[in-house]
């Protein structure tokens, strides 16, 4: 077999498939201290870390599982392939790791010296944060986007068209 053939086999979708963790070989559980654990191919891990490969566009697909030393244990292709209980545990863990408060209303945006000072509502909670240069600190996803403040905190607008008209009008000039 030539080296080219070997390379083709190594990177073919079929070989990548073999790296994925199947629902049959993986069972999640929650430890007494509240950490997510997993039993993968018969091996028990008392704490695993889940990370999204495509956190903005496919948040429920291509989930990497690693141990506390960040050594990859495998990849989950689709969360939806797993049982409801497992899905719930995975979503809870991912929810914590990728926690982004959801902006439901923008009360005001003040621009001063290149910084944008936001007053927003996160449901019932009023909060203010500062974004430096919106065009560089915005991450678009399907219908909305994440705003990253000066500390690195992310605030999410799930659906831009669904927030109040006044909020849209305030933010629209900076969204290009």
């Amino acid at each position: 077999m030539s080296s080219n053939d070997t390379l083709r086999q190594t990177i073919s979708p079929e070989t990548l498939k073999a790296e994925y963790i199947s629902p049959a070989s993986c069972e999640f559980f929650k430890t007494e201290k509240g950490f997510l654990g997993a039993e993968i191919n018969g091996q028990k891990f008392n704490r695993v870390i889940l990370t999204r490969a495509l956190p903005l566009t496919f948040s429920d697909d291509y989930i990497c599982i690693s141990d506390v030393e960040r050594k990859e244990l495998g990849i989950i292709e689709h969360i939806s392939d797993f049982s409801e209980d497992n899905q719930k545990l995975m979503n809870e863990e991912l929810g914590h790791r990728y926690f982004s408060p959801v902006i439901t209303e923008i009360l005001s945006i003040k621009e001063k010296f290149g910084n944008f000072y936001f007053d927003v509502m996160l449901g019932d909670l009023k909060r203010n944060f500062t974004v430096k240069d919106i065009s560089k600190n915005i991450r678009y996803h399907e219908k909305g986007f994440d705003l990253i403040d000066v500390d690195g905190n992310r605030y999410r607008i799930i659906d831009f068209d669904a927030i109040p008209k006044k909020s849209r009008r305030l933010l629209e000039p900076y969204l290009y």
Partner: protein
Amino acid sequence: MKKRKRKDSAFPEKRKNEFHPSLCAKLHEAGLDTRNLKYNVSGDMDSEQCFRDAWLFFDEKGLYIATGEEKLEKVKKNHTPVEPSYTLDSVRSIPLEDVDSLETESYLSTGRLMAVKDGEYEPLIWFSLGKLGDFGTFAKAFNSFKNTGEVEINEAPDESGTCRKCGAPCPPDRDLCPRHMKNSGTAIRLFRFFGGHIPQITAIVLVMVASSAAMVLVPQISTRSLYDNVLSNPDGLPQNELIKALGTLVLSIVGIRVLNIILTMIQQYMSATIMPKVMYDIKVKIFEAMQRLSVNFYSSKQTGSLMNRVMRDATNIYWFFTDGLPRIIIDSATIIGVLILMIKMNWKLSLFALLAAPVLVFTIILGDRMFRRMHHKVWIFHSRLGSMLSDNINGQRVIKAFAKEDDEFDRFSEMSREVRNADVKLSVTEATLFPLLEILVLLLSTAVLCYGGTMVARGDGSMTAGTLLSFIVYLEMLKEPFGFMAWVTNWWSRCADSATRVFEICDAQPEITEKENAIPLDNLRGDVEINELEFEYEPARPVIRKLSLKVKAGDMLGIVGKTGAGKTTIANLISRLYDAKEGSIKIDGTDVRDLKLADIRRNIGLVSQDIYLFIGSIADNIRYAKPDASMDEVIAAAKAAYAHDYIMKLPDAYETRIGAGGQRLSGGEKQRISIARTIIQNPGILILDEATAAMDTETERNIQNSLQKLSKGRTTIAIAHRLSTLRDADYLAVIDGGTIAEYGTFSELIEKKGEFYKQYKIQSEALKTIAIGADSAQSNNEEEEQSNEQQ
């Protein structure tokens, strides 16, 4: 982490190492005694990752966590602190013996404080990323208390990111929220740059006012006098007298116009002589300040576009003062002059016209806001297209290698289309709105004409036809200044923004400073001693942990370790490009922080893996550290660095221009010039940070030999991935996770069969494989040659 001292605060409880008395009372009610607290921190989330106020502290008995809500009234105008009120909804006490240590973990947008007991982790509380530094320090304080019984924290609490007047969040590089920021302070500082030119500035302002006054007079003559005194011929003058009067009027108008042109010329000439001088002062001031700043300032995220600050921000200021400010003066003088004349001519008609003026101003402001948004959108599209173009030009080799020209063209077309559509929309809106504005002005003029016309028609002498017409001309004259005044605030904001960024650099304090009575380092021996060194680039993410090392004068220490282990950081800390967080580095027994900075830099030669060569000739670059070096020294240094041979092959040899736009050199060639540059410096301590990584094995071996000669009699610290290059080191340190994993001589480490041995074996086997591959390739070639010969 950047720390700044605050002058005053409305929130003393956030600055000092104690809670607010009201909170202490509340905690006391809940059974928590804060009187003996050792260290505390305020958080913003609870254990369920919900936003709540949280307070953590520890004393000799335990660790305590309370969550609840802090209510603060708005800060009063005089910034006096207001009494906050607290409610608690959960309180937790953990006996001190149940926690061995505290650790923080950071996630995408939050962090979590963990308690560790017998290697088992227990999550305690969440916090937002802005609190990571505070919680990291809290954990450090707790751990030091557990280990030593004392809270040994020499870090000030992180005060960045909050307004010093009201505590509201603001960017880390600012200490005021928008409510408390004022442009006036910036304006005063900006005007100080003009301090040396006060007579000229006064003259310019007077000339501008005179020029405006002259222009305001024109309608008086060209309209009012023309109609009322000449064309209507009220005194029944004969024709030749009328022509004479007309001639005088025309000459007066031409005279005023000429005077105005002369005054404008004088003003522009004077501005042209002063403004470049002021701009020179500003640019020199920024550049001077930038040279003082530490490396950390340049690598921090806020300083990505420093060049813009020198060039673009200075240019923004320049245009405001060259174009904007003169127009403000001229237009203000015009508005005042015109209004005085209008009121003097007919106060009733003036009042009538002025009543409609707010509608006009309001429309202009509204239109301006709309256009500003559209201009911003167009600007973003243009800048995105510019970035794409730059990306495309820089990546041409890759584009061609992957045959992606068509895809790139499509991408460019798509973005160009967006720019075109935005431009078209802007132009169409402008083309629609400006005539509408004209119509509004026309309506206003018509209303004034109707009202004024009835006054003229009444013939009671309250208004003449000439006065009415000049009134209409004055209204026209007011349109542009009012429009300008409506949006000049935006221009000033941009200028103030630029000025603030400029002053930010001028005011920035270098993190690496020399002590007042710094000790000179004249006769260097070369002993280097590192004690319990700790360092972190970002809070709570240590890069170097409790690292201790000793290098005797004249010895060679080899440092090895995986990528990201902290090797380069050690080199940077010895050179004092950064200061240690904790612990010390001593040269000849003196802490580097006590030594003169220039002496440290003179005595330590650093050949970094990031090579930077300046624009200039090769000879200039080699003699960078010693500008008076003779050509003999330059050639000797180049020979020692094995650079001489390839330099001599270049058409302009040592005079070859390198750096941006100059001769392109390979990585290895650049490294050799960099080594020659350090050789000519003749430092007492030599730090080689992957100095030969980009070279082929033969050149590397030659340079190694050369450096070996060079390192005789001087302390050498060599960092390398290729372990074979460190065979001659007196001792070796294997760094892992920011601390020393193994230490000893080359043979000791090989015998130990630890990490060093493992890495050495891997590298040796890889080299053997390459050698076998090369041998088999050679034998194949020989076989082929033989078969060809046989054929």
